[in-house]
Each structure stands twice: as structure tokens, then as C-alpha cells.
């Protein structure tokens, strides 16, 4: 059973991921693929509940930029943790497209990437492997200094350096 993490702690997941093939879309907040969104745009827009869209790693921010006001959540997929495209997608969603909703990491991510996720604009992480939960809890407090500007509102220390990772 996958867990949802927010701010380094387990959080309740109120979202339901919908298969592309599912005929009926249940009530409540749902996440659909970009393909499904494009196919069922009118029907999905007519619903009166929050909508989320899930992007594959090669579906970049520009693909949903024009529709962002329809989404409360954007889920970015990591097919494997080494595929780091979603870090750029998250940052572009925030910085260029002004998206203020939830950005969720889904797929194969490691605790060792948690701080990078937060600093590029992710708000939540779907953790498939609960065996690593201790490492996830620890991950945001491991490093307290960063050397570059990022999405989080870090406190500048001096030169290029900032204080980060206050959660933990």
C-alpha cells in the first residue's frame, strides 16, 4: 500500500487515480492521465470536484500550461529515479506558469531525492516502498545548507548559500 508524504510526514491521500480505461469516474478528487484529460476534457471539466492530471516524464510543463486553472493537482511521474526530468517540470510549473496547487511525485523515487523534490516545487510524494519510511522521515533534515536558489523560500546565509531543510 502506497503512502503519501507531505512535509516529511505521512499524510492522508484524498485523491483517487483513475485508469484510462475506467468507464465511470467516481465522485471526489481524481487524477487522470494527460491523454484522458485530452480525450474527456468536456466531461471532466463539467464535474464539480477537484481534478488532478498525471504527466509522464517526457510530458513537460508546456503540455498543461494552458489548462492549469482546471487542475488542483499535477502528479509528475518518475519511471525510474534516475530520470530527473520531473524536477525541471515542477520548477517550470511553479516559476513560469504560476501553478500554486499540489505537485505530487509518483513512481520510483528515493528518500535521497526528497529534498531535491521539495526544492524544485513538489509538495507531496507517493511512496511505494514503505520499507524505506524511516529514511524518508529523515531525508529533509539531512542537509541544512544549499548553494543555489530554489523554489523554497530559503534564508540566505552568505554568498550563494542558504539555509534549507527546516523540517525534521
Amino acid at each position, binding site marked *: 500500500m502506497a503512502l503519501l508524504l507531505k512535509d516529511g510526514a505521512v499524510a492522508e491521500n484524498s485523491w483517487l487515480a483513475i485508469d484510462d480505461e475506467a468507464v465511470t469516474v467516481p465522485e471526489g478528487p481524481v487524477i487522470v492521465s494527460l491523454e484522458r484529460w485530452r480525450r474527456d476534457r468536456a466531461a471532466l471539466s463539467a464535474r464539480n470536484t477537484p481534478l488532478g492530471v498525471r504527466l509522464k516524464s517526457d510530458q*513537460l510543463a508546456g503540455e498543461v500550461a494552458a489548462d492549469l486553472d482546471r487542475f488542483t493537482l499535477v502528479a509528475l511521474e518518475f519511471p525510474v*529515479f*534516475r*530520470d*530527473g*526530468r520531473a*524536477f*525541471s*517540470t515542477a*520548477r*517550470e510549473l511553479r*516559476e*513560469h506558469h504560476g501553478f500554486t496547487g499540489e505537485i505530487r511525485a509518483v513512481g520510483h523515487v*528515493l528518500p*535521497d*531525492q526528497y*529534498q*531535491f*523534490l521539495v*526544492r*524544485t516545487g513538489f509538495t507531496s510524494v507517493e511512496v511505494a516502498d514503505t*520499507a*524505506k519510511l524511516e*529514511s524518508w522521515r*529523515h531525508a529533509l533534515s*539531512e*542537509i*541544512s*545548507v*544549499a*548553494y*543555489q*536558489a*530554489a523554489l523554497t523560500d530559503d534564508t540566505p*546565509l*552568505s*554568498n*550563494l*548559500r542558504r539555509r534549507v531543510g527546516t523540517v525534521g
Partner: protein
Amino acid sequence: MTHLQAGPYHQAGQYHYDEIDRRFLAERVEQFRRQVERRISGELTEAEFRPLRLMNGLYLQLHAYMLRVAVPYGVLSSAQLRQLAAIGRKYDRGYGHFTTRQNLQFNWIKLVDVPAILDDLAKVDMHAIQTSGNCIRNVTTDQFAGAAEDEVVDPRVYAEIMRQWSTLHPEFTFLPRKFKIAITGSPHDRAALAIHDVAVRARRLADGAVGFDIYVGGGLGRSPFLAKLLREGLPEADLLAYLEAVLRIYNQYGRRDNIYKARIKILVHEVGIDKLRQQIDAEFERIRGPKYRLESAIVDAIRAHFAPPPFEVLPDEVPSVVVAMTGDAAFARWVQTNVVRHRQPGYASVTISLKPAGGIPGDATSEQMEAVADLAERFSFGELRVSHEQNLVLAHVRRDALHALWTELGKHGLETANAGLIGDIIACPGLDYCALANARSIPLAQQISERFADPERQHLIGELKIKMSGCINACGHHHVGHIGVLGVDKHGVETYQITIGGSADEKAALGAVVGPAVGYDEVTDKIERLVAAYLDWRLEGERFIDTVARLGVKAFRERVYGPAA
């Protein structure tokens, strides 16, 4: 934590860590210690651990783990080099290997020792962060930075800025492939800019302010490319925003389906430089803004670390050097090849060759490292450099102390007078150590340097850069060697392909294959015949590379392999 860096001799420009940097480093070491524990405990699989250990410079090679220690832009203090010597003695086999990336590798490391080694490195503000992995690697530069007579901008300042900016960059740590940045501040390129993913040429703009020409898409390996001009005259304040734009476009559009096509050079090749420039410029315009602006106050604060050492006011020509030179042919040869002019009158920069005839290129014993650390304190303000040509450099030596330095170097087998000559061979570790290699490179380098050991013969031949790699990944830069040697595995037999005409300086060129690949025992003979042809054909003042350029590869092919080849 004991801190070993500060010392009375440490007066030369180097970035000095403060408590914030040290806290970061201590935390990073702890993080890696836990990663090792998680691997040993089974929480992390090898597939998950490998990228994490690589981001900390740890490889699994043929005989053991290899730890690649970062030497930021090649600059070391004596205290740091001494600590490297101590680590080599305590955790390795009493030596280390200086690389073409200006780093140092230990070859006999145990995984379980790595956290303790990182602790020892942190005591002298050193680490192995981002010396491997698909991230922004250690930034490299001119080994004579801050000393070179032709320098217009001190590249160390911006190398340090880029080092900090790239350290655990949250967006650019899982790139399609590795990313190497080099910078120079001199018109004469000693940093091999053309073979880097991004190359930065720092210069003075028309108004006198510092600006940068940015090149992109250089790289060797299976498909070698020289970097292309991407942006001219980038203002200082835009450096980081522009690099963010380049890296973001690469992170998003670089190929991830094929490891051999994942470097940015392939993206440049497939998309085209003009279109890529448009994409990068568009991204840059969006990123550009106060948040990512490189404020001049930041640059000034970093520049303060690189203030010139307390030079004495001296006459430029020193009679004692001239006298010693006329009296000692060996010293004269060494001055001719291993000593270059310094911007400060009365001083010189000295290359300490790690290429004795028959030696292993780039290797230094712990005793030699300690000796060089001592000599750096005595002769060069306690600071030294690693060059991409796998030598060490004392950047600020008084000319009237050259003879004394040379005498001391001789006591440790470090007086070889061959910088830039045929014996000064770049060689990757090859099949003797490296898990990726297909053929050996070190013993061939040893054979060649022994064949040409006679110092007079070497000086007669003049500048000739041999570069060899034991596989197509080209850590030994063979494509840009005046003579390049590439080892391949041909049906289980080590076989070597020889190229000529390559160059890594401001007139960078890729070498061309001169003839059919040859066996291990034939390489040195072929090189000797190439050299003989050059000596027969050269015009007054021509270097090997000039003669190749004038006559073409075909002439050399026919001479060495016969007309039918």
C-alpha cells in the same frame, strides 16, 4: 572536528571554507555514511545504491572500489595534499593517481572504509562530491590560473561560483548523463575547453567588465564533438541564470534512451546549434530575474579568497638562474620545458612532471605527495595545482629559487624535464584498473616514454602530446592528442588505433586515424616511425602538429604503413 587547513604557509589564493561550508560537508558525509549502511543492510539494492555512490565518486573497479576525490578546479593546499598522502597510506596502497579531470583517485578502497575516509577528507575541506554520476562534475580550469602572463580574468573566481552553484543542485542531479564544465580566463586555452559539455571563456567586454563566451556540446567518447559557440559576451550577472537555462533544456530534451547518445553534444548535433540556442535563450529570458542574478557582491566576496599571494618586488631576469642554466644542461632543459612565465616579475610557474620515463602517468606515492606539499610551502605559498595533463604545478615560484627547487625535486624523482614533450603522456588507468576498459594503456605509455627516455632526443623532437585511452570513453583524451592511441578489444586481443592531428587548445581539432589498428607490441614502433617522418619533414620552427597540418595525414600514413595501406 580537527581542522588542519590553516597554517602559516597557506597564503596563496584558495577558497576558504567557513563554518557553513563545513557544516554542509559534515552533513553530506553523514548522509553518505547512512547510504552505505542502508546498502549493507539491504534497504538499498545495488541498482539504487550505484548512482548514490557515484555521486560521491565511488566506483567498483576491477580489483576494489575506487574513490575519486574532487580537487576543485585543480587547486590544493599543502595541508590538503598531505592529507591525501595520509589517506593513501592508511586506506590504500601508498599512492594515488591524478586524473585528466584534475582529480585524485585511490584504487584500493573498501566500501566499509569510505565514511571514515570522507571524514578525513572533510578535515581538510575536501570531499568526493559529484566526481561521478549523471550530475554536474567538478569544474576544471587552467592550471596556471591566477599566475599566467596572458590571463585577463581569474577563472578560479567563477569556477568556485559554479562549483558552489552546482553542488547538490536540486534540479540537475539526475541528468541524462554526466555534465562537465571548464573555464579559462586566458586567450591561450590550457583547459581543453573544446571537449567539455559547457565551456566558459571569461574575458573583458568592450566596457571593461567581465563577460563570458559560452560554448556547448564538446565531448569525446564514441561520438567526439568539439564545442560550438552558444553565446557571446554574456554579462557576469547572468552567468548562473544562463547556465540554469542550458542545463534545464538539456535535462528536459537530452536523450535518455541510449547511454551513448545522452550527452548534450548529441542534443546539439541532432537539434542543431541555432535551434538549441533559441530554446536556451527563451528559457533564459524566463529564468532571468533577481532570484537567479549573480550579484557583484557575491562575486567580490568570492574574489577576495583569490587575492594574489604576498609577492615580493623583484627584477624579472635573475642572473643566478642564467648562470645555473649555462652551467647545467639538465637544469637548462627543465627550465625550458617545465617553467613558464608568470605575470609577476621575478616569478615563474613550474610544472612538476608525474611522467618519469617508464613511470605510470599521473601516479604519485604518498612520499612524493608529502615532498611536493613541503616544496609548495617552501617555494609557492603553500599552494599547488593539478593539471589536466596529469602533472602537478607550483604556480608562484621565485625565479631565483628555481635551481633550489629543481634540486629538491630531484631527490624525489620529480625533476623530469618533459612537460609538453613526447614523454609527457596522458594515459587513463586502462585495463590495469578500470572496469570499463578494453585494453591496457599504462604499460604502453611506459614503453613509449622509455623508448624516448633520452632527454636530448625529447627536446630535439619538441612539443608532442601523446594521449591514450583504454576504451572509447576517452578519459585519456586520445581524440585530441597530437598522437592519439585508443585501445580496443579485437576478439579478445588488445589492439590499438592510432590517430594524428588532434589538439585540445584554442585551435582544437579531432585527430584522424593514420592507419589500420595494430597489436600491443607494434604501437611504440609505429609512433617512432611517425616521429621519424616528422623529423625528416619538419620546417624550421614546426611542431609535430604543424607538420601534420601542412602535409596531411595521408603523407604520414604512406610513410608509416606503406602506400598500399
